[in-house]
């Protein structure tokens, strides 16, 4: 039961982070379309790091 809560909270946090990163990236590209590729790289990386938290939790929770 408590494990499910752990995974759920981690997923919630990661989802919020991914949403914020994506939203801000879209914001920046809208303001400065020329920087699209550079922003894409940064945001993809940041999203990957945010998402990794869920995988850590999935493996650490028993």
């Amino acid at each position, binding site marked *: 039961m408590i494990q499910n809560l752990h995974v759920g909270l981690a997923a919630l946090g990661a989802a919020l982070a991914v949403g914020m990163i994506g939203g801000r990236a879209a914001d920046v590209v809208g303001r400065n379309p020329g920087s699209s590729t550079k922003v894409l*790289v940064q945001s*993809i990386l940041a999203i*990957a790091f945010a*998402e*990794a938290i869920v*995988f850590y939790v*999935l*493996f650490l*929770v028993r």
Partner: protein
Amino acid sequence: MLLRLRALLVPVLAIVLFISLSEELTVALATESKAAALGTSPRAAEQAASPASSTEEEHGVSQKAVEIGRVFGFPITNSMVVSWIVALSLIIFVQAATWKMKQIPSGAQNFLEWLVESLYGFLEGLLGRHLVDRTFWFFATIFIFILSSNWLGLIPGVGTIGRGHMTPHGFRINQPFFRGANADVNLTLAMALVFFACWIFWALREIGPLGFLKELFAPKGESAGLLKVVLVVVFFVVGCLEIISILFRPISLSFRLYGNTFAGENMLETMANLVPSLGWLIPVPFYFLELLVGVVQALVFMLLTAVFTLLMCQREEEGSATPQH
């Protein structure tokens, strides 16, 4: 362009073969650890371990690919069948499209050239000219293979044709003959591990073993005196953390793709069974969502692997570019 298409063919064949081979190797190993690794409840883990005998667990798709037969005692799962179908049809399509190449392309050749050229342009903008020439074969193959297997898994009949049994709620399929290729963690893990090997090879070739260690542990930027001593220690600790995060990359890559594909199939199944009389209508919007997810996940896998490669290999290029200024 014609030359490039031909040059692309050989690596495509090689990587597809290698991926299916490594998939066979990992299929036996990963089935044991997967149920435990996913952190599921004991009941779900039991179900994953023996999906054929799960008569009371009637909801959703089984978490692992179901064995549908054995060749010389070697298990063949339904996901492996679909991945072979995808690989074979890609090989046949590319061969047919480039069989008689024309100066002014049309039809299949035109489509293939458009696909390869736009992928090449996209990756060139990301990785730069030097790196994309050496690594394009891998990223294009990964993208095309994941995209086609994701979309092939959406064709009606995948997951719904197979051996089953009668239940009080109607006929239930236990052993579907086909299952989305990426809905099996073995294939995605195999692709991630292939990338990991390629990544190490590219990094060693581009920056050398010494540069590899320097990239991980050496302090970046200019500093002097006591600050330098502190920074050396700090960057050593950062390097240790970096190694952990690098080792987690194949795991997160494979589980991201597997999780998205498996969740998509599960959702389609649930939506089809939600209202028995409207089973033909309710999944339709979700099919469009799954088409989108198929593209996005293929793109994400390709982009992440490309960015990981870029992060490790770009230092040398910057170093060689600075003296010109």
